[in-house]
């Protein structure tokens, strides 16, 4: 492969561009109207327009994207995550056009992409699953029929998109009365995110941990699992913090979970990168939840503790290389890594989306810090796409060390002009239960729902006073009277910003 088209945008497109550059492979970006000046467009070797801003008219347009791939002379396509990453038609269209799809086969996507079929595969591999519906409930299934199925499974239960992933189209349903509204919302979300409104039901395990196993499989039958990722810190079924390893997984449990994950993948002849998600119950039993047939958002924590570049390996596998990594080395984590997903959402205002222009950006640097970002100072965060603008990952000699570095990095991180979830993480990382790794998937909702657990943005009085001082200084400096009489620094700054005339 000499040239790869990245059928995605944002931080993951940038991530793939970087991996390609490290391999000496040319890159082709695609962009919608509002993304003309996005970072992935700036960093790619080529960039082609694919349509208007709405995803259905651009990043989900298989025909346009295949056409661009051919015109640009690309010989491979990386789908990233989201958009078309788990769309078997897209994988098939790539194959049909003679392009290498950097991911599993269309057949594997179809099979594991159906959450209900995937459950069957897990059962076949001898891996326990959460009790739930055998068949998908498509858009034609009436509310009454769904209610009947739900009664059989019992409440509380989880309503999930058959074509789902990333928490989209997922709802917890505590009682029958909630089902119709939840069904409507989940279907609408699923339809908009995946183009498929079918859902299924699963019993809700109370207070489970969400543990997942990264896999790589090559075209010669080798499937290798990696040390687990702990992804229990979720808000609205959306992961917000991930780490590796999990403090709740002993080496013995790790052996069993990673073997189970690899067994599921082998059962379906899986190739390229994929992830098996499990629920880990408080009693130590685990259940197959679903398989993500693509790269995960949180893949960097695995990279940080194993040293393996997963995107590079996706490409190497796709071009026919053998997976010659040492299996044992992938199961022994090197210390600890943690990731915080930085969303353009306002944690002080119900996590309301906060798109807009980034007026100022300071990215943290230094030892143990990695920032995978699609943002830059002056860039726009559009209203049309997922609000995640970057992923901050830290590595430390211990979990405490990784968390300490994360706190340091968050304190250095400034994203100005929009609101982000950075303050939310600062609150979270101070929580005693979080620090002790005492949590499950209900953690955030419980903590944030507890009255008196303190407002998220618990601004200390001292910080408030300093903010008042800073604002006063800023306004004072720019008032005409004081600017004229001010000292060198201010005027020199202004002078430096002045553009000289063309002579």
């Amino acid at each position, binding site marked *: 492969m000499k040239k790869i088209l990245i059928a995605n945008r944002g931080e993951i497109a940038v991530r793939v561009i970087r991996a390609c550059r490290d391999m000496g492979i040319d890159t082709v970006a695609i962009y919608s109207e509002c993304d003309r000046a996005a970072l992935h467009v700036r960093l790619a070797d080529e960039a082609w327009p694919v349509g208007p801003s709405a995803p259905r008219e651009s990043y989900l347009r298989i025909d346009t994207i295949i056409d661009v791939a051919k015109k640009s002379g690309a010989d491979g396509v990386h789908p990233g995550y989201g958009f078309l990453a788990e769309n078997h038609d897209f994988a098939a269209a790539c194959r049909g056009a003679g392009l290498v799809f950097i991911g599993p086969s269309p057949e594997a996507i179809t099979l594991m992409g159906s959450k209900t079929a995937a459950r069957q595969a897990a059962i076949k591999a001898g891996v326990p699953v959460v009790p739930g519906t055998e068949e998908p409930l498509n858009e034609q299934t009436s509310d009454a029929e769904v209610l009947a199925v739900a009664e059989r499974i019992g409440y509380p239960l989880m309503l999930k998109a058959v074509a789902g992933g990333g928490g989209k189209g997922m709802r917890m349903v505590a009682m029958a009365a909630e089902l119709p509204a939840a069904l409507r919302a989940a279907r609408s979300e699923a339809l908009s995110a995946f183009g498929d409104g079918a859902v299924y039901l699963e019993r809700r395990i109370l207070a489970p941990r969400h543990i997942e196993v990264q896999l790589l499989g090559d075209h010669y039958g080798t499937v290798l699992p990696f040390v687990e990722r702990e992804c229990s810190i979720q808000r609205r079924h959306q992961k917000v913090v991930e780490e590796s390893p999990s403090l709740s997984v002993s080496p013995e449990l790790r052996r069993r979970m990673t073997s189970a994950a690899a067994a599921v993948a082998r059962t379906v002849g899986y190739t390229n990168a994929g992830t098996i998600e499990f629920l880990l119950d408080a009693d130590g039993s685990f259940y197959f939840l679903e398989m993500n047939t693509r790269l995960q958002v949180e893949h960097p924590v695995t990279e940080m503790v194993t040293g393996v570049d997963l995107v590079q390996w996706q490409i190497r596998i796709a071009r026919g290389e053998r997976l010659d990594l040492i299996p044992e080395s992938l199961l022994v984590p090197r210390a600890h890594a943690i990731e915080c997903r930085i969303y353009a959402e306002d944690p002080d205002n119900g996590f309301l989306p906060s798109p807009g222009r980034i007026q100022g950006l*300071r990215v943290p640097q230094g030892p143990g810090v990695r920032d995978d970002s699609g943002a830059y100072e002056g860039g726009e965060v559009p209203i049309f796409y997922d609000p995640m603008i970057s992923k901050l990952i830290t590595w430390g000699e211990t979990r405490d060390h990784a968390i300490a570095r994360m706190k340091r990095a968050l304190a250095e991180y400034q994203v100005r002009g929009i609101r982000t979830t950075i303050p939310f993480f600062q609150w979270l990382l101070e929580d005693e239960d979080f620090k002790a790794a005492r949590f499950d998937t209900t953690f955030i909702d419980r903590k944030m729902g507890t009255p008196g657990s303190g407002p998220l943005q618990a601004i200390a009085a001292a910080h*408030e006073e300093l903010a008042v*001082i800073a604002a006063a200084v800023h306004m004072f400096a720019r008032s005409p009277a004081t600017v004229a009489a001010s000292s060198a620094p201010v005027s020199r700054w202004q002078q430096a910003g002045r553009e000289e005339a063309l002579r």
Partner: protein
Amino acid sequence: MRFEIAAGNNIHTVTIARKGAVLHVAIGDRTVIVDARRVGEMAWSLLVAPEGSAEPVQGVDAALAAHRTAGDFDVHLAGRTIPVQVRLAGGFGRQKKAGAAAGTGPQRITAPMPGKIARVLVTAGDEVKARQGLVVVEAMKMENELRAARDGRVREVSVVEGQSVDAGAILLVVE
């Protein structure tokens, strides 16, 4: 120079003056000595004298982001984001009166962020109850339902489904 600065639940009266190389910032009955150095168009390196000291040594790396309303900022410092509103002395008094007047008038439902109108749930003339959903704004693949603050009647709907709106745009008015 005198400001009124709102932060959190407090409105501080702040007087600021240059004295030689430093600034004297009076907040309430305390005067803080500040050595301020601009490090960007909207960024400052402040060294602040701790309470009881005249030596400005406490480091405060502060950057501001301006809101649409003049004098409203997010102040970023110590990894925190602190919204503040700065007015010239007396500014809040005037504003509060205006605000109070508006409080009793019709409810203007505005877009909390830029987005697209996913659904309009009412039409002009409809009677609505407090907490009733009026309009759904979609941004970043999330739907956000805006509700009525109190009972009333829809006077005017200014948007249609599918329309893009800026933050602050008036979507409908309930009286």
